[in-house]
């Protein structure tokens, strides 16, 4: 959990080779209902550019991006 955002599902994408983090987040978002939040934990800095671009093209919203040590944590709301 982060501040006021509560996730409905968490996926661990750490250490995955290109382009698997995007492939898996695209799959993961379909496993939560519209309006729910997916928490995705990535380790590769490439996710910082890939995920916003993916959210834009897939029509979902990144509510927040946190960094904890080497982990990059995205809270993504399914919009459609």
């Amino acid at each position, binding site marked *: 959990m982060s501040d006021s955002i509560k996730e409905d599902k968490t996926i661990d994408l750490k250490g995955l*080779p290109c382009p698997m983090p995007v492939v898996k987040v695209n799959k993961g978002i379909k496993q939560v209902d519209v309006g729910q939040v997916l928490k995705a934990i990535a380790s590769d800095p490439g996710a910082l550019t890939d995920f916003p671009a993916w959210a*834009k*093209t897939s029509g979902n919203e990144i509510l927040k991006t946190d960094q904890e040590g080497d982990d990059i944590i995205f809270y993504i709301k399914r919009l459609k």
Partner: protein
Amino acid sequence: MDPKLHQEMLKAISDKLTGVMQMYLDTCSRCGICASACHVYASVPEFENTPVYRAESIRKIYKKYFKLQGKLLPMIGEAVDIDDNTADMLKKTAYSCTGCRRCMVYCPFGIDTQQIMSIAKLLLIKAESEPEILSMLADVSISKGDSLDSVKENFLKGLKKIEADVVEKWKLEAGKVAIPTEVENADILYVALAGAHSIVPAAAIFNAAGENWTLSFFEAVNFGAFVGDPSKTKLILDRIINEAIRLKVKEVCICECGTAYRVMAQLSGDKPFKVSSITQVHARYIREGRIKLKPLPADVSVTYHDPCQIARNGGVIDEPRYIIGQIAKDYREMSPDPKTNWCCGGGGGLVALGDETIDFRMKSSKVKADQVKKSRAKILITACENCHTQLDNLNEHYKLGVEVKFLSSMVADALIK
């Protein structure tokens, strides 16, 4: 079938019918030589795994609509209609071909089945039956090109996180930047993948060679090419070409990604810069004495997997062997002629399709696994992201007991200060 879609599919075929493509479609003698040249058939010997079977899925449609005999007497020429079953049939043929073009080397007429499959992929796009993941990945790449300013901010944040890793591999002189970006008139624009492993070793080597280089804001891989969509392929490519032109760089160096290299080097027309693969650049640095490498202990045996798009289809064959010759004393070739090295079995977008294709990828690449096993090497080196992932999967599945490594990371680890 919707008549409009039918028309669009016919138009798509017609647009692809260049003289060379018609030669490929008209001249096959069905001799079958290509069958055992394909890793899919060599691993799983069933007729539908042959290149000629795949090509026939398009050839029969071509005969029906573009050849007189097929139009008049379709039953004689085995001509088939485009109908509601076409997409299902083409999915099987198009996405069981990795585009390795090994069959072409053996075919007496040089028929390029991968090119014929590009028609199948285009028809699938028209029928909205292409793999959704590949189109999604292509759209993500295009979206980055459309919003460069927001990409830049996050990209630079990401680079900050890996700068220390670069310096750990190669210590910089005071005042030097570990990962330069936006350098006008740079000698090299390096185009990496969206992953630290594709940037860190390369950056350390550029810095060790004293290169005047700059890192691209875009990832090299072209998912438009994997999905077989010419307009998306061009949009993804143009992001990099425009960046190279804007920065007035002399050379664009493509990271360890076979498709990215082939698309940039061979399928992008005239450009005001030279195109190199990172392997070619590293070989050049060694020849010019700009970097020096420390060899591995003599008992460490290595072998090299030639990525099809870089070696057979890109001509980069001697350079990796020259580099490995500087690092390893015990090098073992996997096949007498590198041009006929087996495909890893993960190309053509199959690796990006992940779990969906893993069963097929493992079964259809048994010959590659056998080739690796036979080498008895401890380290399996390659120079392509796609191949690396697939070889890692094969290593686990067939218990090959090798360590799969990128050539660039071996070079970075061997740098002598």
